[in-house]
């Protein structure tokens, strides 16, 4: 009898933080091996850095044979599924990877005695709040934000349907905007532009965004993987409060200063219309199957995407502790230690 913890998306921002947390403290489940699916051979050393004991599989969630190999020889499985694309080459990838890939991964696990699953979703299936003083609850109607949102919504629906049919318990976690160690280059760029005053602030900056420090997300997923709650729960996993855009920029600069980095105290202000334009261009591009990361992000900057973590606190005992400034400091440190231009 072999029991495996299968982690997909292991080379990603969340994946590496989660594996690092496992290296520090195992989940406490009766697991024989941790199998990690990564997309690219260059991810292999990164995953090894995070969790030495991991068995690493290079493969694609779009491939039946890659997925079959991932589960080969397992009798029972615990699954943490985080493989997805957020900034893809084309809109079609959203669906084949995020939705189709999820279906393949879950079906594979169900054939291997799936015990419990954690599905890492996103804020995007739920869209944006109408105003800065509203926050999303856990069980909100779907209102997907463009292609990514629609694909992540499909993935959630697939997870719920498959798990319900098989009577396997699971948790869908919805993290909003990430920050923290293991950040990709685009986040390093964010840290740098905010620090040097060239990050575009669209509108007045009073719109609110929830963010999640990656170690908080890892904590939330650990709790979701080990809870004994029956059925399928959906929870926001974020920092304890949403922040206004201005607060976020202030915290990033304060963190940079505390790390002894040069800070230019100014903000590149763009009128709200710029955000509206960007969103329109993004929508038009996505309609034609094209995806452009900078434009997509610019279109989202003046939106309210704020959530309440009351449900995760209540049901999972989730209690995030690290402040925004401290989390951003650790982000700068990670960047500096790993040769990023932050």
């Amino acid at each position, binding site marked *: 009898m072999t029991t495996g913890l299968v982690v997909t998306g292991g080379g990603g921002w969340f994946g590496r933080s989660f594996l690092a947390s496992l290296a520090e403290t195992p989940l406490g489940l009766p697991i024989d091996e941790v199998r990690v699916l990564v997309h690219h051979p260059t991810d292999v050393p990164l995953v090894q850095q995070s969790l030495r004991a991991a068995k690493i599989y290079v493969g694609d969630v779009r491939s039946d044979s890659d997925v079959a190999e991932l589960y080969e020889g397992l009798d029972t499985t615990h699954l943490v599924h985080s493989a997805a694309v957020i900034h893809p080459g084309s809109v079609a990838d959203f669906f084949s990877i995020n939705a189709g890939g999820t279906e393949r991964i879950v079906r594979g696990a169900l054939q291997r005695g799936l015990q419990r699953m954690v599905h890492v979703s996103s804020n995007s299936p739920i869209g944006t709040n*109408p105003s800065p*003083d509203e926050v999303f609850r856990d*069980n909100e*109607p*779907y209102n997907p934000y463009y292609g990514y949102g629609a694909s992540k919504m499909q993935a959630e629906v697939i997870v719920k349907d498959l798990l319900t049919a098989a009577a396997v318990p699971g948790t869908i976690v919805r993290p909003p905007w990430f920050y923290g160690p293991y950040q990709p280059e685009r986040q390093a760029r964010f840290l740098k532009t905010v620090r040097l005053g060239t990050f575009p602030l669209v509108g007045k900056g009073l719109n609110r965004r929830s963010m999640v420090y990656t170690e908080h997300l890892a904590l939330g997923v650990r709790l979701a993987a080990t809870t004994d709650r029956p059925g399928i729960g959906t929870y926001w996993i974020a920092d304890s409060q949403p922040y206004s855009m201005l607060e976020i920029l202030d915290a990033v600069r304060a963190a940079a200063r505390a790390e002894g980095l040069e800070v230019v105290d100014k903000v590149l202000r763009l009128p709200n219309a710029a955000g509206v334009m960007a969103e329109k261009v993004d929508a038009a591009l996505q309609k034609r199957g094209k995806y452009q990361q900078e434009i997509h992000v610019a279109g989202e900057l003046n939106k309210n995407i704020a959530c309440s973590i009351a449900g995760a606190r209540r049901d999972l005992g989730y209690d995030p502790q690290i402040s925004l400034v401290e989390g951003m400091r650790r982000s700068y440190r990670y960047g500096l230690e790993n040769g990023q231009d932050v």
Partner: protein
Amino acid sequence: MRTEVLVVGSGAGGATTAAVLAAAGVDVLIVEEGPEVAPGSLTPFSIDQMRQQYRNMGELIALGLPSVTFAEGRCVGGSTEVNSGLYHRPHDMTLERWARGWDVKDLAAGSLLEFSEPIERNLTVSTFPSGPPPASRLLQEGAARLQWHAQEIPRWFRFDSPITGVRQSMSLTYLRQARRHGATLWSDTWVERFIVEKGRAIAALVLRGDGTRDRIDFDSVFVCGGAVQSAALLQRSGIRRHVGKTLTMHPTVKAVAHTAAPINDPTDVPVVQVREFYPHMSIGGSATNLPLLGMALMRTRRRLDDLAGLLPHMPIYYAAIRTQGLGRVTALPRMRDPLVTYRITGQDIARLRSAMGRLLEVLLAADTIEVIPSALHADPITSAAQIPEQVAKVTRRTADLMTVHVCSSVPMGEDRSKCAVDSYGRSHEVAGVLVNDASILNDAPGINPQGTVMALATRNAERFLLDHGQTPAAREFS
């Protein structure tokens, strides 16, 4: 004709004002535009009731993009004779917002409690003796499954069995109290305007039901015609500063739930509300009889055959929002009804969509066979993944909005840059004029307003007595 105090309108504000003043010995004449109808003599929500007790058959319109349809009572007792009877105590958060934003004196958190408690007893505010009926429970179940806070809202009801009771409207309570203490009530009497001399209102010109005109001289007048009519009457009388420019409403979107069990009671409304999203939006149940069900489904793609058979299985629910946009009331020369306009902003549209989404979500979470959004070309849905497509059908051009809550056309407070009356309803512009109805609420309260209207009306009427060297009587009826 001469009276010490004239009260215009016999609804929640007017009846309360008249009762407080009469009980203290003031000579009060109440004039009411609409007819006197014996309570209980008309079927609730029937065409007959629409004709006799509502203004313009219950179809008034605030023009805009989209327009908002609204309803008002027009009879002795005002809207309280036709309303759902759902009672909320004034919310502290709201009072604090008003005190701060408009500089309203003596409106701290908790300051209205001493008025609310006797009102609750006078109206026998109560919940169903053995729990809410099935159409209410449906909402409760859906909300419980989503972990959203929902609760039974008590009503001004005197229950005579576990499931039936009599709504304690103004004609059964505060108007009776006023008359018992000597107040006179003229029904079918419309106040056209006031005569103002040297900055003081001295008389009202009225049109009686038989077509005759009359003049009523008074020392003071309380304007309690409801948020739209009070603003129009003041404007017709030349009192215009900050009058009619800040109207608020709680526009609603609706959806029909289709259930296997026959849970709809066509003569009553569900009493459970989802409070999770207060103050931005709330979800509750609407009256559902055959014409109303037909109207709710008319523009959808749901086939309408055998509607009569489906009626017991198809209660209608609503989601109401607070808006960012405001409305305007403008009295028009030689026209009896004012022009009402309302501006729905982009944020309001987003909130209406969010409200529709949540409404569909909670109804799907309950035991329903299908849920049909009441929207142009909407399709019946059975799963949460179908919600986005239907919500997208709620647009500026197609949204079908209605409301029964209109407030805030004559805001109160000391801040003269935006208030028409002071903290106790006294006009900043003309002496002898007080406003004491839903008009003086500073903005949309996010709850059913009558409880707040009555508490403020009691407070302001008592203040008037104190100003005139008189002592208010006990607040609770004997």
